[in-house]
């Protein structure tokens, strides 16, 4: 089998901090100020006083990533935010150059890093199809031959000659995706474009992506949606902080990724290096899963309530803080989200929290969970203002359903929820 993509020791370095001014748009006055202060800086450096501005920090967004991808295979790329996934895709799409390393790519690359690039609000849907198609690299003749297909897929047929600025956001997305979905390069690189849109739209996108994959194209797919990754890809690589941690069959890679944040036995403790300085004055300490008896466990029984306990420190008073968690299945589907100030009286009472050590504790009622393993992510934020801390996969726990209703039949039930419902049976006639 021929290799479609060969990535060898790719690295991408960015300068951050003071030197970042070089990489942001500059005003001439900044350059002048820099020059004027240069002697001061040099003098300071000479007497050993470190100048905060002169600390040049480099960060490797990608470091030493290598892999080969055969033609016709579909590879998933998973990782936390900031792991380097988008940077990798940008390099593969030739949007940016690697700092070190080489990539060889065999065939035309079509990139979906964003839908609707090049759409102009004043142009009609028809005109934008041509425009967007041309930007993505389609020939005019190609766009013409696929025009009807694209319009059908987008379901905006009757609005096709109206300026796009009149479209609803859903129509806009559908049209944008429709154009991108009809790209037919040998290699397709997709970056979380499925993260936008409603459920209907997402289903459609996934379907189309599945078709593309089945046509024998080589596909690289980045997503946070584990079920999409599981459905579409055969293999996946896990990136973290710019490095490739593993590559393997998708289920293994997804399991590895989801459980990589976990500590053992029902408790997660955060060390200093796990928390960024930007979360101050909030400091997470630990997250515990406790059973009915108050014991820290990693397996709970579905017929007993579960307690989720989040311990944290506030180094200064904070207003408007809310602490909560997200619960999801191991396949990445969300089950619920709940915050400590959801309850109105708590919301009023704890609108402002003084400095100190706190515990936010919630009890999840019994008879809710189905059998399986669940992942909890925590979040500390001030709604609409600032996010102090977030850990998407802080801890996982297992649920054991022995003794739950219906377990006298040895069959698995669907869904993450398995409540005890109040069934009544009545005879209403002969």
């Amino acid at each position: 089998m021929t290799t479609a993509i060969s990535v060898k020791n790719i690295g991408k370095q960015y300068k951050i901090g003071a030197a970042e001014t070089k990489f942001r748009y500059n005003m001439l006055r900044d350059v002048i100020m820099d020059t004027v202060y240069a002697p001061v800086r040099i003098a300071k450096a000479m007497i050993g006083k470190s100048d905060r501005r002169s600390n040049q920090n480099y960060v490797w967004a990608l470091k030493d990533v290598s892999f080969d991808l055969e033609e016709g295979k579909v590879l998933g790329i998973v990782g936390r935010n900031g792991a380097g996934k988008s940077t990798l895709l940008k390099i593969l799409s030739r949007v940016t150059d690697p700092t070190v390393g080489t990539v060889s790519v065999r065939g035309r690359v079509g990139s979906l890093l964003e839908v609707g690039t090049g759409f102009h609000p004043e142009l009609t849907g028809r005109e934008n199809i041509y425009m967007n198609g041309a930007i993505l690299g389609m020939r005019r003749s190609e766009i013409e031959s696929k025009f009807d297909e694209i319009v059908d897929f987008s379901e905006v047929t009757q609005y096709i000659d109206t300026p796009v600025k009149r479209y609803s956001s859903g129509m806009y997305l559908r049209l944008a995706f429709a154009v991108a979905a009809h790209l037919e390069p040998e290699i397709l690189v997709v970056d979380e474009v499925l993260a936008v849109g409603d459920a209907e739209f997402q289903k459609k996108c996934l379907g189309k992506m599945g078709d593309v994959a089945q046509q024998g194209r080589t596909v690289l797919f980045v997503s946070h949606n584990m079920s999409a990754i599981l459905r579409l890809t055969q293999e996946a690589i896990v990136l973290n902080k710019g490095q490739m941690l593993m590559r393997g069959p998708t289920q293994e890679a997804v399991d590895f990724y989801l459980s990589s944040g976990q500590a053992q036995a029902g408790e997660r403790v955060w060390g200093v290096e796990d928390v960024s300085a930007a979360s101050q004055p909030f400091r997470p300490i630990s997250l515990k899963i406790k059973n009915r008896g108050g014991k820290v466990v990693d397996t709970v029984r579905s017929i007993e309530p579960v307690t989720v306990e989040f311990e944290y420190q506030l180094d200064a008073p904070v207003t408007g803080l809310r602490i909560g968690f997200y619960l999801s299945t191991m396949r990445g589907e969300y089950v619920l989200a709940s915050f400590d100030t959801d309850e109105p009286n708590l919301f009023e009472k704890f609108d402002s929290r003084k400095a100190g050590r706190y515990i936010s504790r919630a009890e999840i009622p019994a008879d809710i969970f189905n059998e399986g393993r669940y992942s909890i992510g925590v979040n500390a934020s001030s709604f609409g203002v600032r996010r102090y801390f977030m850990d998407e996969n802080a801890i996982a726990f297992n649920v054991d359903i022995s003794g739950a209703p219906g377990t006298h039949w040895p069959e698995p039930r669907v869904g993450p929820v398995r409540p005890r419902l109040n069934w009544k049976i009545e005879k209403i006639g002969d």
Partner: protein
Amino acid sequence: MTELTKHEPTTIYIKPSKGLAALNLRDLWVYRELVFFMVWRDVKVKYKQTLLGMAWAVIQPVMTMLIFTFLFGKVAKLPTDGVPYPVFSFTGLLPWGLFVTALNQGSRSLVAHNNMVTKIYFPRLILPISAVLSGLVDFAIAFVILIILMFYYQVSPAWNLFWTLPLFLLLALVTAMGVALWLSAINVQYRDVNQALPFLTQFWLFATPVAYSSSVISQKWQILYSLNPMAGVVNGFRWSLLGTGSGPDISLWVSVGISIFIFISGLFYFRSMEKTFADTI
């Protein structure tokens, strides 16, 4: 469900680019249709939802010409080498309009399309190129007006018009392109360009013989004056259309040389900065 195209795919190597980047004209040729689309889009969008539509392409040079005629033709009575002032100034306004589009649209072209630059691969040269070329549409419309003006004032065109005019048009494009390349690349990193542009445009207008004839410049300043490439372009336009002025002479060749230098150096500067665009824009 279409099949994979059957042609043999080419392999591309992506590596850190060092030093002087090649011009990569092949890629530009592959993406030639995109240039057409972008020009088409710019022209369409410019006049959408306007009442007067394309008429604006005419109104601007005509209004400028009228103001100039009043101020410089009637009040200041600047010499015009024997041609009625309206025709004289309008001939200058034609290539000048092209140049101003290149200055304004061209220098902003990269920054204005920053979402494309950061998400999609295409030869970035396309952006300033299409910005300058979209000025040609306005140029063509204004050219028609010039012909009407020449008829009205009964000014007969120079005999060698048909081959000299395209040459000077080419020179105008080369000059405009060169400036657009430099400014658009610099603007990505130093947004001062945006601030300086209105002032630069005004200053350049007065340094170019649009409203006046370059014969008013005294002999000793002529060479310095001809360092402005637009001086050569405007003079050349006038000469090829109306037959006024001294025709190709040393000052013209100086201007041509400068234009070509700005263009070539602009190409190379642009290409060498290109790899940083997505990161710094």
